[in-house]
């Protein structure tokens, strides 16, 4: 079980959090064709290595935030507020 550094609450057990998917996906609803829109909805980097991802401290401060995690070691690199 990961120990996740919440930017507001400090390091907390993973069970207090909910993973919220890949970070930095840009929601553009106008002037995008179906392929681009489908890409936004479904296509993911899913990298083997560093992954920019979103978490929410759902059983803490409730904030969404980004962090970098290595998907091979599961080690968390750094965090920042998503908003």
């Amino acid at each position, binding site marked *: 079980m990961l120990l996740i550094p919440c930017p507001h609450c400090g390091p907390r*057990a993973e069970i*207090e959090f909910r993973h919220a998917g890949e970070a930095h996906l840009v929601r553009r609803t106008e002037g995008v064709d179906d392929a681009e829109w489908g890409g936004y909805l479904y296509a993911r980097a899913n990298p083997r290595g560093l992954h920019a991802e979103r978490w929410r401290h759902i059983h803490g401060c409730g904030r969404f935030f980004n962090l970098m995690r290595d998907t091979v070691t599961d080690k968390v690199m750094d965090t920042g507020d998503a908003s």
Partner: protein
Amino acid sequence: MADLLDQPGIRVRRAPLEPLHVLHCDPDDAEALGAELGVTLPTAPLRAGDGAGPRALHLAPDEWLLVGWRGEAALTRPHALVEVSSRSLTLEIEGEHAVALLSAGCPLDLELMPVGAATRTLLGAVQVTLERQRHCFRMQYWRSFDSYVTGFLQAAASDLPAPVAS
């Protein structure tokens, strides 16, 4: 009110209901809004104001839980003030084994939780708001979870780990 638990080193009882309000606002407006409300809003994360009268628990960057605050206020800055006095129940857990009891279900390092700190966390499967005061922990949770929370504490209390020699 009657004690839920009373055994050597542990006392758990229900706290009387108090007015509760959730205040959301831009952190930059907190000081001003606090002044208008007549409540000091702690700026440090996870801190609870103390002293007599209403106090505020700083649970999120833009969120404070006002405990014991009554009445009206004309507030001049953007905010959300929502009364939740009926939403939750509160337990007071005191005694030398209070940390051991809560640690059956709470993943936090409660031994190092300072007096005057407050945070949302988990007790088993339930989200709770935990505040450490000088003489006890105050634990707040949504009322529908009452049978789970009280049942959990009673079960945990019967199987506490032996305290470390001291």
